[in-house]
């Protein structure tokens, strides 16, 4: 028996959120008294080498020239071999787009129960308990499993990034023996869309703008981006700002956008509609900047600045440049 974690790769290397899952998996495996196994899928074992430092008891490198690029059916076939090889009873992925489709498809093939986008994991009487956030972060529920194999995908930033270990895990190479005919997806092209920006899902700090930028939207979001730049933060936005066309949808935080959980969330000119609060209420520290002291955002905020973002953001950027030496 074992806990198996899929370490995902993307255009920039190992996906951070899948490493977070591996960190938590170590704890779960300890409680279950079984080893933790990391599985890495690719054309060679380079990524498996990179995954060796995060404390897995072993790293399975599923290697095939047909796995050079992510393709769902190939990835699932490879992980199924890994699950059999490791006799996995718990299988975990990050709840990324790929992680979610892989976890669901693999769970189906293994006759397993599946808890999508869990926010916490625990063990009770030798079985996994996955905590899910449902009703767009308005309710929590514990998911228990009746199947032998238990599968969950984990929302990014639910667990801290793991410390590296001094002893590297041994790597085991496995060939899933795939043929092109086994793979149903053709990947015709890939292009990066992040332009070097920090992604909302993985960001430790997020600076968001809302309707408060209305008097000059492009300058307002330039100020948001400038502060984000100094902090190495991602840029977020409220639905109001996205709907008004001030900034593209991919920046939207909230019920119909992205759920985020940074260490620090700075909301500038956001009143705090309930849909927005549902998407960022889990942030560790929340700073709100808004001229209206009665705005609902201040009910969630740890620190409140009653002021105009056009004054406060540049002052904050200047202060941070001075103090952080950036």
């Amino acid at each position, binding site marked *: 028996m074992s806990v198996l974690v899929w370490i995902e790769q993307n255009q920039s290397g190992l996906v951070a959120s899948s490493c977070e899952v591996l960190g938590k998996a170590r704890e779960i495996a300890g409680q279950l008294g079984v080893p933790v196994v990391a599985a890495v899928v690719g054309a060679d074992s380079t990524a498996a080498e990179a995954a060796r430092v995060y404390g897995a008891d072993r790293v399975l490198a599923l290697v095939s020239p047909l796995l050079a690029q992510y393709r769902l059916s190939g990835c699932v076939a490879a992980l199924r071999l890994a699950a059999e090889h490791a006799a996995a009873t718990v299988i975990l992925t990050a709840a990324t787009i790929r992680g979610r489709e892989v976890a669901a498809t693999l769970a189906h093939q293994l006759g397993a129960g599946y808890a*999508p*986008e869990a926010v916490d994991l625990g063990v009770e009487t030798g079985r996994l308990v996955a905590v899910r956030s449902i009703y*767009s972060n308005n309710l929590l529920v514990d998911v228990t499993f009746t199947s032998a194999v238990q599968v969950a995908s984990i929302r990014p930033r639910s667990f801290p990034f793991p410390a590296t270990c001094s002893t590297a895990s041994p790597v085991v190479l496995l060939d899933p023996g795939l043929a092109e005919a086994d793979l149903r*997806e053709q*990947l015709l092209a890939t292009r*990066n869309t992040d332009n070097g920006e920090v992604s909302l899902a993985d960001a430790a700090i997020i600076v968001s703008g809302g309707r408060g930028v209305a008097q000059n939207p492009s300058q307002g979001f330039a100020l948001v981006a400038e502060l984000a730049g100094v902090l190495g933060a991602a840029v977020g936005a409220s639905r109001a700002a996205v709907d008004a066309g001030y900034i593209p949808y991919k920046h939207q935080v909230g019920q119909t956008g992205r759920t985020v959980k940074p260490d*620090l969330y700075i909301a500038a000119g956001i009143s705090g509609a309930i849909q927005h609060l549902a998407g960022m209420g889990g942030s560790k520290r929340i700073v709100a900047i808004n001229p209206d002291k009665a705005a609902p955002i201040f009910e969630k*905020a740890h620190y409140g600045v009653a002021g105009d973002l056009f004054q406060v953001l540049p002052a904050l950027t200047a202060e941070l440049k001075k103090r952080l030496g950036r």
Partner: protein
Amino acid sequence: MKIAVLVKQTPDTAELSRVAAEDVRSGQIKAPLVINPWDEFAAEEAILLGERYSATSVAISLGLPSAVDVLKHALAMGVGAATLVDSRSLQGGDLWTTASVLAAAVQAEGADLVLTGRQSVDDNSGAVAAGVAAYLGWPLVSAVCQIVEIADNQITVERLIEGAQERIRVPLPAVLSVNKEINEPRYPSFIGIRKANKASIPVVSAASLGVAAESARTQWRNLRKPEERPQSCHWIEGASAAEQAARLVDLLLAEKVI
């Protein structure tokens, strides 16, 4: 070609925070119910593809008898037909139950393409598209933001993953979950609403689709509201924005969040 659109009846997003754990347990949701907003993009895309490829479309919902309203919404938008699968015999099922019943309904309709939204705003599982694809044995592409082309019994799409966009081609039949970026769902027209109100919507049961109830592989327990952390806002005072900024940075540095 026939396109099946999977739509779910969910609480109005503005009301989600008022849904009580007890109401979910009992299945007696008091909030106003609407078509799951994510599924509107799937319905719109089915209508657009219908025009592009002269395909027919059918909306399928698994739900209580009240879910006929979301099917009427889909019809009023312009989806060609609708079927309701009555969920009342499926109490205690999990997402695999949902997926297997929907897969059977898709098969019964003879569809060759399935479209659905990225997730429901209530269960948030985002797993139904993958589950339906798995039960049907069809390829899956999730997070689709554009349907580029359907030709030679293959479909080519663009999809968005974290930080990248991919162009993927799969053979038909296939299952797609679609993103908000794919289109702008239309509002039902007055004529569409009148037509939908007159449409007869067949109601089928899981048993009539030939789906045997499997035992659920997961169970829900301890449904609860997240703990509200006691929160009082610490106001950052100061004679100027610069003074406020300096105080705030002091506090954030002391807390090591920057």
